[in-house]
């Protein structure tokens, strides 16, 4: 398994030759802060899932949340676009600022927040409609296209950015569910890109994919960070090392350590991080 991951890592790098390998690139906070999380605690009913978490997510980079199952990394991700609002009994304390506004503020409509933040889930979830309609869903909902030609253009651009266009351009009318798992995941990435989000959240986007499809998605992530901010939750530490510039390590609902990925993986400041990364637990 580890060998397999090494193999996909090298494929991912050769696929995207332009930017330097992400691991070497990370300087301390390379870009302006896009999302600032300050003192966030999250609850599901009585159960507290996050304890006083604070971290900054920089723009034009990939931030990875790692940690064992149930450590709160997905909870924090779902706080960032207020998806937790849909779960009965879920509650968030603390402040999450995005581009200077508190996304939990009383005057903020969660629908507006989600329009600016795309999300990709663990299992590919294309809607049961055609490839075209899947990508056109967001632009249609938010009336982003002024004409049919305009919509066609958005769909093509989004599919190209998701590196799926060449594979599907002759069957845009076919069901999205007819694609392979990796293609479906790129389709939902294209669907998210179609509304030009400034942030893309990915919740273990490769956990249901084979190594080749994983390499495709990772190459795509590296490409997308040039003009978006990406936050990815992953179980695979190799993946975090390959795709991210910033890594945040969570344990039992608390943020243990957050910093440049190469530093977290080579010289972590906290022993617990070291133990997790070297596979002593988790």
């Amino acid at each position, binding site marked *: 398994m580890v060998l397999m991951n090494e193999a996909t890592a090298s494929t991912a790098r050769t696929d995207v030759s332009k930017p330097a390998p992400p691991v070497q690139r990370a300087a301390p906070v390379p870009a302006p802060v896009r999302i600032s999380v300050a003192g966030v605690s999250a609850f599901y009913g009585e159960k507290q899932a996050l304890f006083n978490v604070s971290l900054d997510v920089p723009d034009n980079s990939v931030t990875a949340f790692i940690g064992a199952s149930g450590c709160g990394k997905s909870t924090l991700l779902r706080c960032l676009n207020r998806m937790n609002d849909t779960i009965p009994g879920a509650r968030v304390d603390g402040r999450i600022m995005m581009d200077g506004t508190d996304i939990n503020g009383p005057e903020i409509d969660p*629908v507006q927040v989600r*329009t600016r933040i795309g999300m990709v*889930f663990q299992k590919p979830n294309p809607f049961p409609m055609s490839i075209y309609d899947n990508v056109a869903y*967001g632009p249609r*909902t938010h009336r982003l296209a002024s004409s049919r030609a305009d919509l066609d253009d958005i769909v093509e651009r989004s599919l190209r950015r998701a590196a799926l266009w060449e594979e599907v351009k002759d069957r845009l009318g076919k069901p999205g569910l007819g694609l392979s798992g990796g293609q479906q995941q790129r389709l939902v990435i294209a669907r998210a890109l179609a509304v030009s989000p400034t942030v893309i959240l990915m919740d273990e986007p490769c956990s249901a994919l084979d190594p080749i499809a994983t390499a495709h998605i990772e190459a795509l992530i590296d490409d997308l960070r040039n003009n978006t901010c990406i936050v990815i939750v992953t179980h695979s530490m190799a993946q975090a090392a390959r795709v991210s510039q910033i890594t945040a390590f969570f344990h039992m609902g608390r943020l243990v350590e957050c910093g440049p990925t190469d530093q977290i993986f080579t010289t972590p400041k906290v022993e617990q991080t070291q133990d997790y990364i070297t596979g002593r637990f988790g």
Partner: protein
Amino acid sequence: MRQLTSASRARYFRRQLTDRIMSGLCLLAAAIGLSLLGLILWMLFSNGIGGLSVAVFTQSMAQPGAGGGLANAIVGSLIQVGLGAMIGAPLGMMVGVYLSEVGKDSLFASIVRFVNDILLSAPSVLIGLFVYQIAVAPFGGFSGIAGAISLALIAMPIVARTTEDILRLVPQAYRDGAIALGSRENEVVRKVVLPAAFGGILTGVLLAVARIAGETAPLLFTSLGNTNWSTDITQPMASLPIAIYRYAGSPYGEWVSLAWTGALLITVGVLLLNILSRFSHAAVAGRTGG
């Protein structure tokens, strides 16, 4: 393989025997059910096919000895069942959407669900009496529209129940995907959940239509029946079930024969609806790949 002891061997044969007996009983039960259905169909065809003629579809009911057909009853049934479905199906769908997507496990939704289940099993004669009280007595007369309302009340809980059941089968991942794209609740339901469940809901509606097409009791107190040609929904209206009810109990041979023919027509219609519902489900499932 290990040598079986005599005790375990006896147990083995006993289990094998029990298995065979149970399988045989299941097969028997299935055979009884199927042969009863087969007998009904055979009886309908053998008795009803003889009375089938062009006149059945072109002439209204007439006095004994004057020929006549079932045209007014067929058209009356189509009008009342059609109107009933047009009123009952959308209402039922809205109830189903409410239960599955909005109310979910809230107290009010639980009450609605419970009441809907009661309505689902309420005797249809009771529904006829209820509609008599609200739509016949106050307006001073039996009418086709009252018949349609009573049929709608029978269709509504069926459609509500199937709609809720089908919507609950739609994966949560579709809803999450739509919400994450910034859809509002009504957009999630209208644009993603309902289209995904369309085939199943259509099947539910067709089955409800099949069910109300054969209802007799609620029509007795509402549209009453009419031996003349009438498409005026404010007047008493004929229907196939009531025509069968009246004719089958009559002493006239040709009326009894027409009753059989009417029964055959309803049964074939219901059968076609059932087949259609299977196709609609399969066709939509195939189109969406789900």
